């Protein structure tokens, strides 16, 4: 059993550069790191989506990637969440924003009081009125949460980013220290395998690369892991095209998603303009391309789903090589971060790594299944269109875990959670309300506060939030002033 002394990362895209950067910032110099830029994953990187969840902030800080650096060097903008417009071609529209704990009154979750109001008035309860970032985002406003003032309504608002994967990949690549990481531009000609482990990679430039651990970031085909017998996930085939519309004025701090019979289309509001992504199935290609309406700058076709094992022998997969997730939520980026954090936690100490692999696979599978629950919840409704994009989603809504979650909410508004879910209780609450799921009954403990008293309180709260939102600057103006400040400072 030898000590882990050499790690090879294979790939040429967001996952590979981010993984290499994370290893560079974390590992002892005694461990040699090599990055082999295999192929080019720019086109499939579309499937990392274009928004992140708030947890990217801390993750970046640990890698010395600061927010000013991102804003100054890319067209990144702020993001309060995803706006789903007439989701599923129905009346369901809401801003799926990132929010801290929604609070409780008399030990009962806040949303239960909103449920009671909806049930009593026999109309769809609207949670959005009580979410500061939904109010601000929809009004086109943005501001950072005030530091050190947790009483301010805006302190409950979390934010992520709207980003371009290629730009971020380039930023990560620019931070790689070539004195620390040996970077090779070459494709792989042959992979030597012995007893279920990769012994060496023969590159097209003639080099023979050996390592204790190989990290496969080569995208959905998983060039390395597939040679060890791993099969791709059992999802569905999706196509994506991306276009870009330059703009003088930056759009709001959220990504907008519109439904169509062929699939959906998103507008990501970057600083220099809006990126349009159209997702569709093979059967509706013509309609999708026609409706896309912008010159295609990237396109790809992938099969979604996760592999049974993300780590086999001495090869671990990160990002799309392990799991391709439809970029309808921030989940693809969340999963990429989770992959890297999981790897860092379980980085093998020696060349004997079966324990780490087993635990990694267990947690990978748990993460992948939990993420699918959230996606499944977006497709769990009765009036679905018959078109292939919508009808093909049946497989993702069948999980017993998801059914339990939906049943618990639809019965009495309870948010049932499983261990270590990437989407938190607030995400689920906002999703259920957005999807117009109405509990049959509300939590009886809610009646500790009289309905009339609570109505007064809720009205007051709504007024305060509207007032705060109205006083916030427009997203574009805030960004402009912030960049002026950052340019002076840096």
């Amino acid at each position, binding site marked *: 059993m030898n000590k882990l002394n050499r790690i090879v990362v294979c790939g040429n895209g967001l996952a590979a550069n981010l993984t290499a950067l994370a290893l560079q910032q974390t590992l002892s110099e005694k461990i040699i790191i090599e990055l082999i830029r295999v192929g080019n994953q720019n086109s499939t990187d579309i499937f990392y989506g274009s928004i992140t969840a708030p947890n990217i902030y801390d993750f970046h800080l640990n890698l010395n990637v600061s927010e000013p650096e991102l804003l100054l060097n890319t067209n990144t903008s702020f993001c309060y969440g995803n706006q789903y417009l007439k989701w599923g071609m129905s009346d369901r529209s809401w801003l799926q924003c990132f929010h801290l704990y929604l609070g409780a009154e008399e030990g009962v979750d806040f949303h239960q009081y909103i449920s009671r109001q909806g049930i009593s008035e026999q109309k769809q309860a609207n949670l959005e009125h009580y979410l500061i970032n939904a109010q601000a985002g929809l009004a086109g406003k943005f501001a950072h949460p005030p530091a050190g003032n947790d009483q301010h309504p805006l302190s409950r608002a979390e934010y992520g980013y709207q980003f371009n994967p290629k730009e971020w990949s380039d930023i990560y690549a620019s931070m790689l220290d070539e004195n620390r990481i040996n970077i090779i531009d070459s494709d792989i000609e042959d992979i030597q395998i012995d007893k279920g482990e990769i012994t060496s990679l023969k590159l097209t430039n003639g080099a023979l690369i050996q390592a204790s651990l190989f990290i496969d970031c080569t995208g959905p085909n998983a060039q390395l892991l597939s040679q060890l017998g791993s099969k791709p996930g059992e999802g569905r085939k999706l196509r994506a095209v991306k276009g870009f519309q330059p703009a003088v004025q930056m759009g709001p701090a959220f990504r907008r998603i519109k439904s169509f019979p062929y699939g959906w289309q998103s507008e990501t509001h970057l600083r220099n303009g809006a990126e349009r992504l159209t997702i569709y199935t093979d059967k509706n290609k013509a309609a999708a391309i026609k409706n896309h309406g912008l010159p295609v700058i990237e396109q790809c076709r992938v099969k979604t789903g996760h592999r049974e094992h993300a780590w086999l022998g001495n090869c671990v997969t990160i990002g799309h090589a392990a799991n391709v997730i439809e970029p309808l939520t921030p989940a693809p980026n969340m999963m990429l971060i989770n992959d890297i954090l999981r790897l860092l936690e379980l980085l093998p100490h020696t060349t004997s790594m079966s324990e780490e692999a*087993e635990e990694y696979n267990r947690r990978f599978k748990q993460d992948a299944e939990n993420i699918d629950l959230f996606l499944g919840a977006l497709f769990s409704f009765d009036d679905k269109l018959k078109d292939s994009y919508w009808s093909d989603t049946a497989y993702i809504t069948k999980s017993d875990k998801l059914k339990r979650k939906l049943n618990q909410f639809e019965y009495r508004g309870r948010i049932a959670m499983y261990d270590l879910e990437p989407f938190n209780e607030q995400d689920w609450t906002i999703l259920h309300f957005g999807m117009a799921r109405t509990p049959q009954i509300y*939590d009886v403990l809610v009646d500790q506060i009289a309905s009339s008293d609570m109505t007064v309180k809720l009205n007051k709260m709504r007024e305060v939030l509207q007032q705060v939102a109205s006083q916030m600057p427009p997203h574009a103006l805030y960004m402009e002033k912030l960049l002026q400040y950052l340019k002076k400072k840096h």
Partner: protein
Amino acid sequence: MNDTKPKLLKEITIVGGGSAGWMTAAALARMLPTGDVKITLVESEQIGTIGVGEATIPDMARFNRNLGIDEREFLKATNGTFKLGIEFNNWGKLGDKYFHPFGGHGVDMHGVDFHQYWLHSLKAGNTNSIEEYSICSVAAKHNKFVLPEQNPKSVLSNLAYAYHFDATAYAAFLRKYAENLGVKRIEGKIETVEQDPTTGNISALHLEDGNIVKGELFFDCSGFSSLLLDKTLGVKYRDWSQWLPCNTAKTVATKQDGPMLPYTRSTAKETGWQWRIPTQQRVGNGYIYCDKYISDEEANKVLLDGLDGEPLSDVRTIRFKTGCQEVFWEKNCIGIGLSAGFLEPLESTSLFLIQQGITRFIALYPNGELPDIVRNEYNRLMTREFEQVRDFIILHYKATQRDDSPFWRYCRDMEIPESLQRKMALFQHGGRIFRDENELFTRASWVAVMLGQNIYPETNDPILANIPKDGIQHSLSSMKKSMEQITTKLPDHAYFIEKYTEMKPQSGFTMPNTGKM
């Protein structure tokens, strides 16, 4: 409200007093909407209580806080003392001693767990045990106690504590509390239980004196007899004795003699283990063993020989089978406490499991229809709770090198649940602990027991190699020094209790004195 208001539960009946019954009554009376539900507790003075617990874990303070109970009044009423952890003797092997503290060890640095630094430092010649970096362990060793500080920069912010107390006195304390909030107590022995012929639900209890007590929802707090859940509704029991073979406890109280220790002591014996739990006036003692390996007479002797004070009564024998019910909520009946399951009190979890049973119910508080959807979720959550505690307790038996008796050889060699096997293998391999999100026992707890029972990882975290050894040694030394320095300034445990309980209750607390019903 209009007619969309759910049909409410109107009558809740609790069967059995004791800790489980009165904790349930008190919590329901405090937390359910005022005046909505009538709560009745049926108990018989002819039937004794088992008095589980006496030692607790830190969650107990939260339960009391939620009831609005002032800590000083609680300590006075129950002869309570503070507890900083558990001292384990002879568990890994004969002569071994380790401390499982409630607070963590040291401070995590650079995103790496403290215990990884400590393991790394052993190679550089550090001879200090990991306990010397825990404020709870250091304070306990010197018999000191103080309440934790709020300032996160203070060493004392890492202090966590629980209680030792007289469980019978606690039940009496909660009885008064609950009755003041309107809970109706009925004295009587249950003769028969009436079920609805259509639904099978429990509809009424017929008492020996002819009284009939009705209810819509029943809590079975009848102890090991599990009068409703088992005997009436026929719920099956999940037997875990293949992993936790002890099946008998001998208990006796002794006079408080010597210093009032702020920790529980658990000493492994040839066929089980003996506890020592100090309250203000007496010490609770018990010997838990498997009767397959030792006779009751011999067990009596082991217990009495292991006492360090004069017994205050005869030795009491309690038989049990470790495990839990297949479901905790069946039809309109919920089992709380011993009627729901039994896990030996090695990690003082008995009262915690009662507490969880109650708080889960309140979180899922159903309407009068008691729908399956609520019942199933309750059962799922409670099953997980029991299994997680079970695994942690099994670890103490499995991770032993003792081979001085057939009992320990059995424990050492037995098959264990896959969930625990995985945790042990990961720690053995690289010192890693992964917990589920809502798991009761913290990483520090798992580390304390794994290391305490001599599971030392084969390799160290490779990320540590990036950090200079001198820096690690310096950080560890300064942590240890600051804990030692602050401990010298702390008051003696007994002195602290004396002064603390003399103080007036905090403003805002009163024993509730107005009925709600």
